[in-house]
C-alpha cells in the first residue's frame, strides 16, 4: 500500500526543522527531504549569541538540537539526497529521488534556504581549499603571516576581514561598489585597522597558481583596467543566493529568485508553502527562519484540516500513513 505523508518538508535548515517540530508534534506524518546536511547555514555559523533563550552556543550545537527535536517528535529525516523529479501541482505531491525512492504528501513546505554566492572568477573552484575559502574561522590560521583578499562589503565581509588580521600580515578588501553595505560602526572599525587596505569598485576576474593560489587578477569596474596581485588567499563573503533554480517554472519568484509568499507562507500553488531564506523578505536571521517555519507548519496543518473532506472523497482513507 502506498505511503503518503501529511507534510513533506524540502530542506533541513532552521525553517524546515521548525516546521517539522510543529507538524510532527501536531501528530501530522512528516518527512524532511534534505539535499545537504541538516542545520543549513546555522552549521556555517561558529557562534550564535543572539538566539533568544539560549546562551552563547555553537551553530552546529543549535542545529543538532533542532534536528533531535524534530526526530523525537516523529519526523522522518531523509538527508543527503537529490530530488530527480517532482509534481507539486497535483493534490497529492510527489517527489522522486535519484536513488529511486518516491515520497508523497498532501502538503509541502519548501524551506530550501540559500548558499554562499560565488564570485564566478576563473579558478575559483580549482583553488577551493588551496587558497579560496568561505570561512575565516575555519581556515584563517592557514594564512598566518600571509597576504589575503576579502571579497565583499557587508557586515560579514568586514567583520571577517578584521578577524583575519589576527592571522594575515595584510588584508585587502575588494568590493564592487564605492561604499560598503555594512553597519557604520563595522565600517569604522575596519577602516581603522592598519592591516586592512581597500580596492573599491572592482572585482576579481581570475585566480591563478600552481599547487596553491598565487595571483588574483582584479578588474576596476569603471575603467576596466586590470591589475595582477600576488596573494596567498581569497575569502569570499558576498552574501547568499536562494536555492530556487529548479523551481523557477513552478513558483512565482521575485527578481532575486526568491519565492513569493503571503503572510501565511502560502505560495501560488495550492497546498504548497515556503519558509526561510528562500522566500522574498528583507531580514534573514535564524529567528526569522524559525518563525517562518512555524507559520508554514501551522498554515499547512490548517490547509489539511480544511481539505480533509476532499481528501477523504478522493478515497484516500485507505492509505497507510505509517
Amino acid at each position, binding site marked *: 500500500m502506498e505511503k503518503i505523508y501529511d507534510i513533506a518538508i524540502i530542506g533541513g535548515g532552521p525553517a524546515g526543522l521548525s516546521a517539522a517540530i510543529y507538524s510532527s508534534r501536531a501528530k501530522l506524518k512528516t518527512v524532511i527531504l534534505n539535499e*545537504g546536511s541538516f542545520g543549513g547555514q546555522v552549521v556555517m555559523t561558529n557562534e550564535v549569541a543572539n538566539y533568544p533563550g539560549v546562551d552563547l552556543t555553537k551553530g552546529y550545537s543549535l542545529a543538532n538540537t533542532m534536528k533531535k527535536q524534530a526526530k523525537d517528535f516523529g519526523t522522518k529525516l531523509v*538527508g543527503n539526497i537529490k530530488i530527480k523529479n517532482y509534481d507539486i501541482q497535483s493534490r497529492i505531491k510527489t517527489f522522486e529521488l535519484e536513488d529511486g525512492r518516491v515520497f508523497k504528501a498532501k502538503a509541502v513546505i519548501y524551506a530550501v534556504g540559500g548558499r554562499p554566492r560565488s564570485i564566478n572568477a576563473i579558478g575559483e573552484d580549482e583553488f577551493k581549499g588551496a587558497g579560496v575559502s*568561505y570561512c575565516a574561522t575555519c581556515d584563517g590560521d592557514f594564512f598566518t603571516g600571509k597576504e589575503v583578499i576579502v571579497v565583499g562589503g557587508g557586515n560579514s565581509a568586514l567583520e571577517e576581514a578584521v578577524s583575519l588580521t589576527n592571522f594575515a600580515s595584510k588584508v585587502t578588501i575588494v568590493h564592487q561598489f564605492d561604499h560598503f553595505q555594512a553597519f557604520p560602526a563595522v565600517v569604522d572599525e575596519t577602516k581603522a585597522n592598519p592591516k586592512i587596505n581597500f580596492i573599491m569598485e572592482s572585482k576579481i576576474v581570475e585566480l591563478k597558481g600552481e599547487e596553491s593560489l598565487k595571483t588574483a587578477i582584479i578588474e576596476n569596474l569603471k575603467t576596466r583596467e586590470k591589475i595582477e596581485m600576488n596573494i596567498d588567499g581569497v575569502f569570499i563573503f558576498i552574501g547568499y543566493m536562494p536555492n530556487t533554480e529548479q523551481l523557477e517554472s513552478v513558483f512565482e519568484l521575485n527578481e532575486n529568485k526568491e519565492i513569493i509568499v503571503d503572510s501565511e507562507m502560502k505560495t501560488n500553488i495550492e497546498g504548497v508553502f515556503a519558509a526561510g531564506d528562500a522566500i522574498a523578505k528583507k531580514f534573514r536571521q535564524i529567528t526569522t527562519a524559525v518563525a517562518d517555519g512555524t507559520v508554514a507548519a501551522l498554515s499547512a496543518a490548517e490547509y489539511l484540516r480544511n481539505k480533509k473532506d476532499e481528501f477523504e472523497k478522493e478515497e484516500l482513507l485507505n492509505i497507510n500513513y505509517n
Partner: protein
Amino acid sequence: MKYLQTNLLEIDTEAELKQLMKDHENLVVVLGRMGPMCIPVYDILEEIEDDYPHVKFAVMGFDNPDGGIIRNHPACRGFMGIPFTMYYKNGEVVKATTSIQNYQQITDILKEKF
C-alpha cells in the same frame, strides 16, 4: 582527549591511527574541527557508514597534536582548507582532499578507490 562531537569513531593518538591502518584494508579519516566546512563531511560519513561495511570511517581533531601525522603528510602539501580527508588502502594514502566535499564527491572516491 576528544576534540569532536560526532557519531564517528574519534582517533586520539598516532598509534591508534596506525592500528586502524593495520586492522582495516579500507580506511577514511577526516581531520577537522567542529566548523561549517567539516560538519557536512562528518554528516555524510555518518549517513553512509552502514552502506560501506568494507570501509572504516573515523575522525581526528585538527588541533590534536597527534594529528600532525595527517597534517604533515606529503599528500596534504598545499592544503589550506579544513577538513583534510584521507583515504587509506592497506595503510597507504590513495587519495586526500581538502575543504568541504559533497555526497557525490565522497561516494565517487569510495567507489573508485575501494
